[in-house]
């Protein structure tokens, strides 16, 4: 029952985020857009390029979808609205999302195509930038909750959400999550207008539909992660818990998409320089700052 409810929320969220993404990319608000493009994609021929690495090519879209769904399974959308409330949930989220990168590298290598391959390795480079800060930001969150369990993390924010308690960590996590979801301005592995769709360039039809769905679920999952780790999860007045979670997730997704609309795409080298020279020191400072708050101030 819980599983079904969470899956439905994920699907609904993915649809809404797809509408939002279309809106932010084209400037037109089309509520039926994603449904129409899904029908169009499923009706089209799913072309297999010449001499592909067949296993990688077929597995990549499915792996992307499965890894994001696994990550979503440990995030509580309500006090009991969680599929698996693991004792190491905050770490498991990272473990599952690491396979997003594996899926993109496979999708890049599989089709035997230059654009796709460049894009796949680009995302690996991007990972070298964002993966350390995202884990360090979670350390700050886990320190305050004194637990890696995601429900405990939400409960630690009953009074003050982490976005106010540790703003530096919030900024780091938010930007790293955007990098992980390869949203603009960090959309190096798809890079429309430069790499002709990158990792998606050789996919068509049903396979592309699975890949797009996986990407949308990824954005929803990361919005849920920001909500759980920094915005107090299901806490809020009047409305029931799941409604607060949903509203916060949508707001986070909208903020992520809006940010990308006004900022030009970063170059790989600049992205890495920013993460290593500013992002990681900031994340380390956040750990220190939270430690001082916990041990000295309280």
């Amino acid at each position, binding site marked *: 029952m819980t599983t079904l409810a969470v899956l439905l929320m994920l699907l609904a969220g993915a649809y809404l985020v797809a509408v939002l993404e279309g809106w932010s990319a084209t400037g037109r608000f089309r509520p039926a857009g994603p449904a129409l493009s899904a029908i169009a994609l499923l009706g089209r021929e799913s072309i297999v390029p010449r001499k592909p*690495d067949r296993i990688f090519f077929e597995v990549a879209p499915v792996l992307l979808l499965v890894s994001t769904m696994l990550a979503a399974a440990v995030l509580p959308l309500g006090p009991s609205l969680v599929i698996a409330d693991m*004792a*190491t949930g905050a*770490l498991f989220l*990272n473990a599952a999302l690491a396979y997003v*990168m*594996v899926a993109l590298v496979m999708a890049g*290598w599989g089709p035997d195509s230059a654009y796709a391959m460049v894009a796949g390795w680009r995302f690996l480079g991007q*990972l070298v930038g964002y993966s350390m800060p995202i884990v360090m930001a979670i350390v700050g969150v886990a320190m305050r909750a004194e637990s890696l369990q995601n429900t405990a993390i939400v409960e630690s924010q009953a009074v003050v959400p982490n976005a106010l308690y540790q703003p530096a960590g919030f900024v780091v996590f938010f930007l790293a999550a955007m990098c992980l979801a390869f949203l603009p301005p960090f959309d190096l592995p798809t890079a429309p207008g430069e790499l002709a769709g990158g990792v998606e360039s050789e996919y068509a039809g049903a396979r592309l539909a699975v890949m797009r769905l996986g990407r949308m679920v990824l954005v929803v999952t990361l919005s849920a992660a920001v909500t759980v780790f920094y915005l107090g999860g299901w806490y809020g007045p009047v409305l029931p818990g799941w409604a607060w979670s949903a509203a916060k997730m949508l707001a986070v997704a909208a903020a992520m998409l809006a940010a990308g609309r006004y900022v030009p795409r970063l170059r790989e080298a600049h992205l890495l320089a920013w993460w290593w020279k500013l992002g990681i020191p900031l994340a380390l400072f956040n750990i220190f700052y939270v430690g001082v708050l916990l041990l000295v101030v309280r």
Partner: protein
Amino acid sequence: MILQTLFLGFFGVAAVWFGVVVFRTSSMVRSALALLFSQAAIGAMFLAMQAEFLGVLQIMMMATEMSIMAIFMVMYMMDPGGLGEMEMSHQKRISIAAGVLGTLAAVGVALLADWGTVAAAPPAAEQTERLGTEMLGRSMLVFETAGVTILTAMVAATAVAIEGRGAGVSE
């Protein structure tokens, strides 16, 4: 208990199978990713043995490590795509001998050692806490020494790799 053993066996076989694939393919990237999934299967074995933190950590670390290894192999190897039917094994006799000996030793330890009664696994949260206490206590020196050594190697490698200021194109 039976289900646990079944899963343990399944992931064990998967780990060995992916390990075999590492040497059967001719492409560096396929080889690296097969190793990735072999290690991830070992992570799943940890999970089946109720060592939650270790399992999740193994699954997380291996995804990144093996992919980065893959890109390094692509950079350094003459035939990363395996189009030239590249051979993945070398020094075959010694490798086979080492493999057989290693397997025998592992099976021998598994069968001959006196395991005593195996205690039930403590809850996952307690395991994480105990692991943390261990790492910040008795084992701290070991981990810190290893960490600093690796960091030194990283700094040294970077220092060797970058050109002097003004010597080449910066960026």
